[in-house]
């Protein structure tokens, strides 16, 4: 049986374990051991600011995705079967379109001469076009759009597991619907919310295409820091150190989340 997994393991080993190990090594070794690259992350403003911005955007995107995703998952769960499947199909549809395609779509919608600005001007709501893109706002909107399915699916899965009798039992004991929702349904759906939030937060930490295309160069997320250090400045050590810190953050979040929920549940989704 080990012989059967070894080709797959070899590919994974050569193309992800080895490269990541190499990065880790490069981040501390350059003609001798050095912690210089890590010191720079802590002391140089551009580095720690980028980390702070990335965590801020990720947190923001996660909260928005949770607020938007919860009602959708709830409706899909509460609706009759056909409607529930229809709602889920609409959720999964954009999930399967290229991230680049969606970046293009958001550029077309949000730019100065974009669909939304033209529409608002046509309605005479605004005189000058709003700056909706090439900034943090555009980045967050497109990010939430891409990550929302990762929130809805685990939420829906968790809600499906809640026995419907429980709400009826609550009602028969005198709880009004709102009361029953907050005391019974909401707490039982929290594992799904945690699984979804973990996934969205972690994916957002590593986002690259969306901030690169919609951020307009000012929203420098950590991934862009990595790529710029490689492509523009040839600073492989610095890029490696940033990559290592990013990876450790991601693994740490997964580890913490796994203490509360089953990790299979988070990973099995995509």
């Amino acid at each position, binding site marked *: *049986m*080990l012989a059967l*997994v070894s*080709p*797959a*393991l070899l*590919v*994974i080993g*050569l*193309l*992800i*374990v080895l*490269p*990541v190990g*190499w*990065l880790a090594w*490069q981040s501390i070794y350059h003609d001798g051991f050095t912690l210089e690259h890590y010191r720079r992350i802590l002391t140089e403003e551009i580095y720690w600011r980028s980390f702070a911005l990335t965590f801020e955007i990720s947190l923001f995107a996660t909260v928005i995705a949770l607020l*938007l*995703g919860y*009602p*959708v998952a*709830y*409706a899909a769960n509460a609706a009759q079967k056909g409607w529930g499947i229809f709602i889920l199909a*609409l959720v*999964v*549809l*954009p999930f*399967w*379109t*290229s*991230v*680049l*395609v969606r970046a*293009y*779509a*958001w*550029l*077309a*919608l949000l*730019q100065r001469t*974009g*669909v939304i600005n033209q*529409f608002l001007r046509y309605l005479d709501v605004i005189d000058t076009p709003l700056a909706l893109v090439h900034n943090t706002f555009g980045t967050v909107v497109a990010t939430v*759009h891409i990550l*929302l399915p990762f929130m809805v699916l685990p939420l829906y899965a968790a809600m499906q597991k809640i026995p419907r009798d429980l709400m009826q039992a609550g009602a028969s004991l005198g709880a009004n619907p*709102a009361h029953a929702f907050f005391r019974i349904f909401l707490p039982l759906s929290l594992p799904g919310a945690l699984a979804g939030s973990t996934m969205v937060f972690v994916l957002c*930490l*590593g986002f*690259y295409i969306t901030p690169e295309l919609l951020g307009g160069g000012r929203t420098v997320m950590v*991934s862009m820091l*990595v*790529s710029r250090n*490689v492509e523009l400045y040839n600073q*492989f050590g610095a890029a*490696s150190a940033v*990559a290592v810190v990013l*990876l450790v953050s*991601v*693994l740490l979040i997964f580890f913490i989340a796994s203490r509360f929920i089953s990790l299979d549940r988070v*990973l099995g989704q995509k």
Partner: protein
Amino acid sequence: MKTFSPARMALIAACSLVLVFLILPVLIIVPISFSGARFLTFPPPSLSLRWYQQYFSNPAWMQATQVTLIVAAFTVLIATPLGVAAAYAISQSKLRIMRVIHMALLLPLVVPIIITAVGIFFVYARVGLVATLPGLVLANVMLGLPYVVISVLAGLQSFDPAQEMVARSLGMNRLRSFFVVTLPQIKSSVVAGGIFAFISAMDETIVALFISGGRYQPLTKRMFTALRDEIDPTIAAISTLMTAASLMLVLLASGRQRRNA
């Protein structure tokens, strides 16, 4: 939940708004792609196929499309057997280490893609695989493996391994009993896994940004560079075609999976 209570109306409204937010951007590229205007105006002042013409008559876009299709095809041909073998081993073996191996095979989904991309770039630079077709294929095989493994493992869950035992007790060897008894029953999830690997290879952008170059640049890399410079409606045409292709493949794959379940 039979009556239209205010809470229910609010729920329906909220859900509809979010669904519009999810779907509208995907749909908006379709009318833009058929626009006759040089610059983005909405609604399009006139309809035309000029952006599709531009795409099909541009050698650079065609070359990139060819690279994408070749890479995706080879990715499927390699990733599918590797993933099926691995998933089979994981589901049949009782070794403790298989759990760790299972997690290891899902690593491409866990490690932020930019890190993978830069790491592969460093390794490829050493062995001369940058800007080559095999290099692109190999990277996409790695990225596609988790999809095959997940899909096939799901298929194997509903398969009773006792059947294979019966076949073997009747004199088939292990390999033959797998191909004759097991494979036909999990065929749908194998095909679905292969399709997901194809879509993943077709859409992959970030690794390609780092390791592809020269003649061997996939569509996504050229689109990315074009998008950074200007919003050319040719990309709307390409996007529409890509989305249509992805969705058709997904429908095919999910139809397959359902039949299997």
